[in-house]
């Protein structure tokens, strides 16, 4: 089939995505919160992604559905790389999930290394709140929060190594109607073996920079990167490291930060 394009907005950047037409409908569906209006599709974009079509199934190989699942997962990774590349040197980008209060826009940013709970926290607390991202949040120099409400990459039992790109709407997530603002930043540290309630560890500003730096993208390309990171931490009322076992344990933290007012 011939290639087809759509445009997504990610971290405030417009990314044109070209996929095989056979993948178009599903790709648009799972990217629904990032989709730009088709009427503006011809306008200039900040980055392009050309995604190869799924490889046809061979005898004894992966099923067509598995290939499509893998292809959509690769597409997400490509779009993320393109958006981050387009925003490098312009935005402070934290590997973090982010949710906001749907009425006030108070936003909790929860930074964590890949595979340690961002998506689970997002899908646990996202319904009824404003979904901003489960992957990367962008902050401008004036600390405007830029969303990346991508599909959530969810592992299911049927494919041990693949993640399914899941439309946010399928999980009850939606974009906020209000403008998000930075109300709190936490660093997640999941330890499934620990018991008891969530433990909050306040850290000083400089230790916060040491802790958060590994969870940033292209930090060194910013002008005065450490000042911007410090400004973000201070605006958020400091950094807290949150030790927890399971996502629901975080409920008090989510409620407290999203309840903050400016």
């Amino acid at each position: 089939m011939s290639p087809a394009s759509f445009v997504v907005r990610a971290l405030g950047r417009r990314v044109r995505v070209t996929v095989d037409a056979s993948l178009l409908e599903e790709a648009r569906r799972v990217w629904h919160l990032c989709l730009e209006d088709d009427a503006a599709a011809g306008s200039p974009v900040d980055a392009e992604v050309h995604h190869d079509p799924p490889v046809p199934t061979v005898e004894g190989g992966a099923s067509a559905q598995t290939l499509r699942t893998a292809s959509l997962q690769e597409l997400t990774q490509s779009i993320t790389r393109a958006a981050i590349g387009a925003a490098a040197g312009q935005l402070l980008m934290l590997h973090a999930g982010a949710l906001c209060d749907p009425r006030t826009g108070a936003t909790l940013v929860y930074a964590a290394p890949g595979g340690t709970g961002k998506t689970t926290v997002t899908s646990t607390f996202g319904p009824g709140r404003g979904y901003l991202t489960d992957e990367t949040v962008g902050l401008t120099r004036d600390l405007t929060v830029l969303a990346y409400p991508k599909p959530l990459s969810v592992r299911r039992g049927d494919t041990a190594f693949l993640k399914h790109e899941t439309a946010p709407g399928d999980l009850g997530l939606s974009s906020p109607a209000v403008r998000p603002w930075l109300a709190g930043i936490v660093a997640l540290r999941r330890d499934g073996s620990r018991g008891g309630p969530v433990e909050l560890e306040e850290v000083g500003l400089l230790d916060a920079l040491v802790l958060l730096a590994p969870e940033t993208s292209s930090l060194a390309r910013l002008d005065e990167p450490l000042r911007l990171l410090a400004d973000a931490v201070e605006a958020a009322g400091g950094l807290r490291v949150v030790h927890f076992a399971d996502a629901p344990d975080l409920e008090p933290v989510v409620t407290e930060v999203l309840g903050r007012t400016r």
Partner: protein
Amino acid sequence: MSGYGATTVVRLGPVVDVLTTDQGTVALVEREVGHQVVRVSDLGSVVLGLLEAGPATVAQVAARLVELYGAPPDSDPVEATAKALVDMSRTGLISAEKPGPPAPPIRSTCR
């Protein structure tokens, strides 16, 4: 033994940015892959400032530190300096190399 001698030449590492507050100093150091923010001691801040002007031998760095802080009471200044410089090299703040052109100035912010 630190591995550095009096004539070892040290120079600034790939330090991209430095931030100093009333809590201390941190530096953003580029790595082969990615970057890292590291704590910088008071003495380390002096060394970074010194090496901003260009590479220096361990003996030259030691002489400057003695000027500023006096000689350490119970160790040789060059040995003590060499040890501190080795610690700084582990975090990428400095490296020991042959003499070369001066490093570009560090972007630095005080809050």
